[in-house]
């Protein structure tokens, strides 16, 4: 599956996932806490696979313009990702490499690889509503939250869990809490991000669940800022293959330069 999807998931999912237990003060809370964690872990595992190769389109919508890029990505585990722009031709070959929490970008026009310094991590990734930082920090998030199930609802015969993930006091994350909607078959449908005052900041919504390469998952993802209807980024899969054998050397600076050509 594509890097961006993993990204999206990791970034936003993973942020949410992990757990310690503020709520363990009551045994009931402890129960929902561990159950919530299990649900999230399964949702992650559903996406994680071992590796994926995908092509997808990324649409950035603003009140005054909209542009769509076609991209291709490789992922392996949670740590490694590599992807490139295929279209439009103007941007083709621009690439991003993620290894752990480090990120590099490659621009074919100047034939330079740049390691993103901390100061650039806040900048928007490819002009979208993701920041570089969203991508880079995606895997650290598992440890930084405590979780509980706040509601269960049966829709079309499937149980939908709403899980609240609250950031730990000292965790180096900017969110106050996240809310995730996970279907009982481990499909993440929505992830909402709240600031410290528990005000909604942005939301990621999955839709159009299809079966691709024998896995069910939402084909389309949208990320929206709260109160900004005209301001969103949409990600749509064209095709995806899971559990392919990808060499570790794929995720190197060398291939960042070569694959983009």
């Amino acid at each position, binding site marked *: 599956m594509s890097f961006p999807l993993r990204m999206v998931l990791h970034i936003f999912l993973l942020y949410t996932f992990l757990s310690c237990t503020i709520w363990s003060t009551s045994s009931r809370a402890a129960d929902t806490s561990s159950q919530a964690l299990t649900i999230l872990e399964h949702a992650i595992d559903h996406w994680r696979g071992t590796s994926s190769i995908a092509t997808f389109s990324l649409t950035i919508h603003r009140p005054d313009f909209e542009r769509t890029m076609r991209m291709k990505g490789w992922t392996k585990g949670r740590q490694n990702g590599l992807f490139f722009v295929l279209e439009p031709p103007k941007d083709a070959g621009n690439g991003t490499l993620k290894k*752990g*929490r*480090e990120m590099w970008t490659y621009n074919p026009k100047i034939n330079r690889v740049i390691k993103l*310094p*901390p*100061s*650039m*991590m*806040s*900048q928007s990734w490819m002009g979208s509503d993701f*920041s570089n*930082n969203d991508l*880079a*920090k995606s895997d*650290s998030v598992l440890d930084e939250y405590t979780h509980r199930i706040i509601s269960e609802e049966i829709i079309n015969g499937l149980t939908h869990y709403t899980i609240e993930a609250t950031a730990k006091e*000292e*965790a*180096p*994350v*900017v*969110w*106050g809490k996240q809310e995730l909607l996970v279907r009982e078959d481990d499909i993440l449908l929505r992830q909402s*991000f*709240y*600031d*410290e005052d528990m005000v909604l*900041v942005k939301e990621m919504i999955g839709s159009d669940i299809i079966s691709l390469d024998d896995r069910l998952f939402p084909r389309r993802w949208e990320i929206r800022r709260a109160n900004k209807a005209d301001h969103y980024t949409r990600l749509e899969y064209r095709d995806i293959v899971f559990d392919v054998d990808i060499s570790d050397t794929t995720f190197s600076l060398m291939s960042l330069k070569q694959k983009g050509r």
Partner: protein
Amino acid sequence: MYIILAWRNLWRNRRRTLIILTAVIIGISSMIVMAAFSRGTVQGMVSNSINNLVGHIKIEHQQHPADPAIEHRIITPEKLLRQITAMLPPGSRVVQRIRADAMLSTSREHVGLVLVGIDPDLEQGVSFIGRPPAQGTLFGNQNQGGIIVGRSLLKKINGKLGQKVVITCQGADGTNIAKAFRIQGVFATELESTERAFAFVQLHTMQQMLGVGNDITEIAIQLPDNNGNPPVDLAATTAFLQANVSDKQLLARNWRQMLPAISSYLEMFDGFMLIWYLIVFLAMAFGLVNTMLMAVYERMREFGLLQALGMRPGCIIKMVMSELLLLLTFGCSISSVAAFITVHFFFSSGIDLAIFAEGAEFWGISRIIYPLLTSWDIIAANSVVLLLGMFTGLYPALRATKFSPVQTMRHV
């Protein structure tokens, strides 16, 4: 007699004298007030810059100015600090800091800035961060997770005291590090850019976070008498430090070296002022010559009569010149007093440049300017006006001697 005559002649045409006197007073006052204003601006620039984590002298790794990466740091500085302190004149302050480029994030904003690890107790009187914060508190040793941000930054991220922010930066091993801090204090400085550029945490906390042990990136030295003009020789002290620190990787620079633009501006400043005086004077000179010529032509017959009675041409020149001298002396003294009053009473609390703040910040000019009146400026302005004024008066005075008694007395 000349003075009495000049005095009475001045008041013959009361209106004209008052007008030219007003012009002279406005001219000289504006010279002096503008000079005080500029000098205050420059002085503000200098002390802003020095307080802006520059200090009088700074010691850092020789590569650090060009490439402020954490690799270019001062390793285990304890011995060096003792060494430096021993070399400096008594009353000097020595502080150590560690700084790194970092990103500060909230759930809505991401801001790049320079994170500085400091020992807040030592910074007092050395840099702006040593002052009590505008809001909240400076961290003591007990609060390791506190961060102090600038007022403008707080406004930009729409934050509040106690809010959590995440700092991301590069550690000594090259990996990215993220750590959560809570906003514990808010500092305010003269410059908004400074308020956005820096955030402060405990030195020790930052050393731990970066994984650098006790290493630091800079040693800042404040020499006694923090007025931009330390009594000891700045250049010599810097050179002495550079020559005597045991680690040859280190570079000692004083603020004049670190801020070459401000330094050279400072050196040219008196010249600028003199040019400014000349320009204002030039405008004034036309009025002066014109007025004196009018006064002389009007009294053509009088000068003719005086010559007929046996007054030598030299005396006539003296007569005209003493009128001018009286006028200028008058103008100079009134305007000096007026300028003094303006600066000390009207602008004693400074001039708020808030409206122009954004443009002014380009040069590191303060939001509030405290005009600085120096005797050099008062003397220079008055001398320019008096000397050149008398010089311009020579022409009308010479004209006055050219009126022949025969011709002028014939006009009836």
